[in-house]
């Protein structure tokens, strides 16, 4: 399978975005147009006059990629080119869950034939690791730091896949860059379906999360294996497929220990109780999704 993201981009060693973009393009195929809001992916792939994109690509602003995608789709239809060409929007969690929310909601409500892939590295990495609506409970970021009276981010992740399913999207799926085949297959499925489809890809960031650059895939797999990031598919609002974990469910402690953003939980008084709360989040996922 050909990679349509050329080598030589400026991503960090072990960069999750590069993997996510590569897998998404493998799923969508070369007859696609990519819309990419502001973020690491945009910055690392398009320093003028270079580009790492071997498919047509457009960046506009941080908060409007889904609207730009709507326009691309409408133009292709009007010009009689939509039949084969796929419209693929790829944005980070900031562009998706926060600043771009209105634009995504509008595009999905209007039913444009496009696939939106959220590359979720759980904070604003491009500006230096500030919290987003996707930052998990108790993660320390530069705007939700752990401190004497704080365990870090004090809210759970926004449930974006559920929100997108509630828009009436015919297909919504979660995936992870730790499971490339899963991601490629789900993007391929999504882009084949007519209408607005949504893929939420969990994507550990070596820089923002604080783990060795060789461990990206390992950390990503662990998020899934603990139950913190369940992999499932939804069709017309109903969960239809779940990736089962079987007997090898790992404790969240193993996952948290791998990352600097949770290191305070192992040092601070009361940290054990907080880890137990995170375990409860995973346990609930295991129960709800029957992992």
């Amino acid at each position: 399978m050909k990679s349509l993201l050329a080598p030589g981009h400026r991503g960090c060693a072990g960069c999750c975005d590069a993997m996510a973009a590569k897998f998404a393009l493998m799923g969508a195929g070369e007859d696609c147009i990519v819309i990419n809001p502001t973020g690491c992916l945009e910055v690392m792939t398009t320093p003028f006059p270079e580009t790492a994109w071997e498919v047509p690509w457009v960046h506009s602003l941080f908060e409007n990629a889904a609207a730009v995608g709507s326009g691309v789709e409408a133009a292709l239809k009007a010009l009689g080119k939509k039949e084969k060409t796929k419209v693929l929007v790829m944005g980070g969690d900031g562009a998706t869950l926060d600043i771009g929310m209105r634009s995504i909601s509008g595009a999905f409500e209007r039913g444009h034939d496009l696939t939106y892939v959220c590359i979720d590295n759980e904070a604003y990495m491009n500006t230096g690791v500030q919290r987003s609506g996707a930052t998990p409970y108790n993660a320390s970021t530069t705007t939700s730091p752990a401190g004497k009276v704080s365990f870090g981010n004090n809210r759970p992740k926004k449930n974006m896949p559920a929100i997108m399913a509630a828009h009436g999207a015919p297909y919504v799926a979660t995936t992870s860059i730790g499971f490339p085949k899963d991601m490629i297959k789900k993007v391929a499925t999504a882009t084949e379906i007519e209408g607005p489809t949504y893929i939420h890809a969990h994507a550990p960031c070596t820089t923002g999360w604080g783990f060795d650059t060789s461990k990206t895939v390992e950390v990503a797999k662990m998020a899934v294996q603990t139950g913190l990031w369940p992999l499932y598919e939804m069709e017309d609002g109903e969960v239809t497929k779940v990736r089962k974990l079987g007997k090898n469910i790992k404790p969240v402690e193993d996952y948290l220990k791998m990352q600097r953003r949770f290191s305070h939980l192992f040092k601070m008084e009361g940290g054990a109780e907080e880890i137990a709360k995170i375990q409860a989040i995973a346990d609930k996922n295991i129960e709800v999704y029957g992992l």
Partner: protein
Amino acid sequence: MAPENKLDKSKMVVVEGSYAVAHAVKVCRPNVISAYPITPQTHIVEDLSQFMADGEIPNCEYINVESEFSALSALVGSSAAGARCYSATTSQGLELMHEVLFNVAGMRLPVMMTIANRAVSAPISIWNDHQDAISQRDTGWIQLYAENTQEISDMTAQAYKISEDKDILLPSMTCMDGFILSHVYEPVVLLEQDLTDEFLPTYEPDHVLDPKNPVSFGAFADPNYYTEFRYLQEQAMQKALKKIEDVANEFYDVYGRYYGGLIDEYRTDDADIIIMAMGSIVGTIKDVIDKLRDRNVKVGVLKVRSFRPFPVEAIKNAVKDAKVVVVLDKNISLGLNEGALFTETKSSLYNTDVRIPVVGYMIGHGGRDIKVDTIEKIIDEATEVMKTGIKIESQFTDVKEELL
């Protein structure tokens, strides 16, 4: 000499200004229309929606977006994918588009929008002034202002032709005074399809989002490159000065109608006093001038059609023999106590040998009626300036002291 305007009265119909614009858009054969309703622009997009519902705009998609921000954002994608695009907005909607305006211009996408000019809040006001568009002055859009509904209708086709020229590739906003022009019913000759097809070629961009020939739009530019992008945008603006004139003449050749190029002049040849303004107020001023001319007051009007690019040379040449220039602005640059047209006009003359007094009036904010009496009073004061020099350089007019 400006060509004589040959308006064919047999073809005239009485329609609302908004309808004339929507009809003009239709015959320009857009591929994507994306808009959000806002008073007083609403009737334009409603009329376009009806055209769509009646199947009267072939090969076109209409996107009912959730905000003005997405209205223009969608056109970034559409235009980059090779579509001829249209939107319309006003006031808060235009301000909401602000960030995207830069983006469209920076990517050199020849998007066209009609602005039904309206005041901006706070306090909220739905009525006309030019603050909304003037506040977008530096976004890289061509800005054209129309005097009446016939002109805004015809300006629609002209703007596409200017924007889509391969030497220009800049977006355009055509500005009509909200309510005063958007909601007025008056006789106009609607743009004919056959003449418009002759005048406005199909949009065939050189660079589009095409999987067969992948290109990247909107890459980021570090300090080694950014300046050159800005420089090239300005070069295109300067080229647009001539293009706007050329297109006005080309339009005349096809349709026989002419409203000026960058500027238009009325009774300025021997004028001691020249009043400068933009938009529908020019019609009122012309009436006052006719009256005063009967009393041998030598006064003329200079209509500014193109605010961006700013017609420095045309204005200088038009006013050089006058004894005083009066600039009326339906906007204010807060903190300078001046309207933008006044500031730009003074700036244009500063390093030239044209040394004449220029005075400014800020007028008609938030839809306040501009009365003939006020224009006469301003001309009286200009007569004083001729004799005594400038006492007050720039001022609000018609302020109700009792409300302060």
